[in-house]
């Protein structure tokens, strides 16, 4: 009962099938899990295993073929459910930042809260400056995304998602498109968020980050979770053969 109450996101027997005329891809094959409030879950696995698809399905950027996604007690897969409303409470950070190139950094951050009437322009501006200060970019508030480095862009993308004051943050390989020397600054921001108690689901190849920050690690292969546990269990003593193979390839 206690666990039920704490579950922020519940995923039940999720299937995602991509169909196009030439082929059918079964990207997620019967995945069930729970994400508890305040938990940092890191999803790892070989490329093409469906980890990004899984993450994108959590806020319905991909449509589940079957199964349920229950977020704060509401079934997102229900036709009657207003997905836009729930997406406001689910922040997402993309591999390629996806900042809006035609707007300044500040405008990038204030657009959604102001348009969705969560804040007035003044409140949003104030909040944006406060968050930018926290990630050390308050002096770049009037710059355009094209003028920032990759690491700076990703830090802005993270605080842009935070502007909506989400209950959970989804990270889709947030450091994979960065130059190596910029990975650290982005991970620092994420580490700080985790410390502040944010619920996070992170798809990443940064095993060091997973070891250090994760409460739970999910190992995915061929569309489902085949092993999960604390970072210690997964990295030091993996049980499944495929987990062992994967880890021996990425940890050298």
């Amino acid at each position: 009962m206690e666990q039920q109450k704490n579950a922020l996101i519940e995923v039940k027997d999720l299937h995602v099938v991509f169909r196009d005329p030439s082929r059918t891809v079964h990207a997620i094959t019967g995945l069930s899990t729970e994400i508890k409030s305040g938990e940092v879950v890191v999803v790892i696995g070989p490329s093409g295993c469906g980890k990004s698809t899984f993450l994108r399905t959590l806020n319905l950027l991909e449509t589940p073929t079957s199964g349920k996604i229950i977020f704060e007690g509401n079934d997102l897969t229900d036709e009657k459910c207003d997905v836009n409303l729930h997406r406001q409470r689910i922040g997402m950070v993309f591999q390629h930042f996806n900042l809006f190139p035609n707007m300044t950094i500040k405008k990038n951050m204030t657009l959604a809260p102001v348009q969705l009437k969560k804040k007035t322009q003044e409140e949003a501006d104030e909040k944006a400056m406060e968050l930018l200060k926290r990630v050390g970019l308050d002096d770049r508030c009037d710059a355009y995304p094209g003028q920032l480095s990759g690491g700076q862009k990703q830090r802005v993308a993270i605080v842009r998602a935070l502007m909506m004051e989400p209950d959970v943050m989804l990270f889709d390989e947030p450091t994979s498109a960065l130059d190596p020397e910029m990975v650290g600054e982005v991970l620092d921001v994420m580490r700080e968020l985790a410390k502040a108690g944010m619920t996070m689901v992170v798809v990443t190849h940064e095993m060091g980050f997973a070891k250090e920050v994760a409460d739970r690690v999910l190992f995915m292969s061929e569309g489902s979770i085949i092993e999960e546990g604390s970072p210690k269990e997964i990295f030091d003593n993996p049980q499944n053969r495929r987990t062992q193979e994967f880890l021996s390839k990425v940890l050298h």
Partner: protein
Amino acid sequence: MQEWFSKIAFDFRQSFIDSDRWQALLSGLGTTLLITVLALVIGVVLGVLVAVVRSSYDQKKKKGGVLGLLNKICYVYITVIRGTPMMVQLLIMYFVIMASSTNTMLVATLSFGINSGAYLAEIIRGGIMAVDRGQSEAGRSLGLSYVQTMRFIVIPQAIKTILPALGNELIALLKETSIVNVIGMKDITKWAINVQGRTYQAFMPFLGIAAVYLVIVIILTKLVSIMERRLANDGTAKKRSH
């Protein structure tokens, strides 16, 4: 040589100044520009609507329903309009569809608007599809609705990429209005025909209006390139110059 010059001066006076013909030319110019501007407004509104319907239908996984029907209507509209000559459309509008109306300005702006809407729709659709999918995903993931995402994020970026094509369409539209004399409107082309009829001169009136069209097109081209520069203010231009 002297003789040639005085002939030119005479022709000029006869074509443009005698019986205050320049006034008729100006009012013809007004007609040409008015049709162009009004038709452009109608065309842009129609074009955006059709483009949004067509591109959201393309992105949708489940086909059919109301959107499917709208998509079919848009497809037929584009096919028919692009598949028939502008002059024929104008004649059909004047003599068949709106046969009871004597307001030629209304007929002309509607015909040209509907025509250019079909071309603009495909241009705008191309622009919408050229915007990275991540942009609309980012908008949607913040909780913005489909319409808000289109309005604030996708369409402004699409317009930037299609601006040169929009400029082309505007120029084509302006020049195409020269056929409105078939429904009896007095634009600048009709003015030249009239002057020729009165004075038996072709050189001055026709080269004159050619020059007028050319000057307007040059001005429009300039305006479009100024807008292009203004829209490019996303900082990337500055970065390149380093």
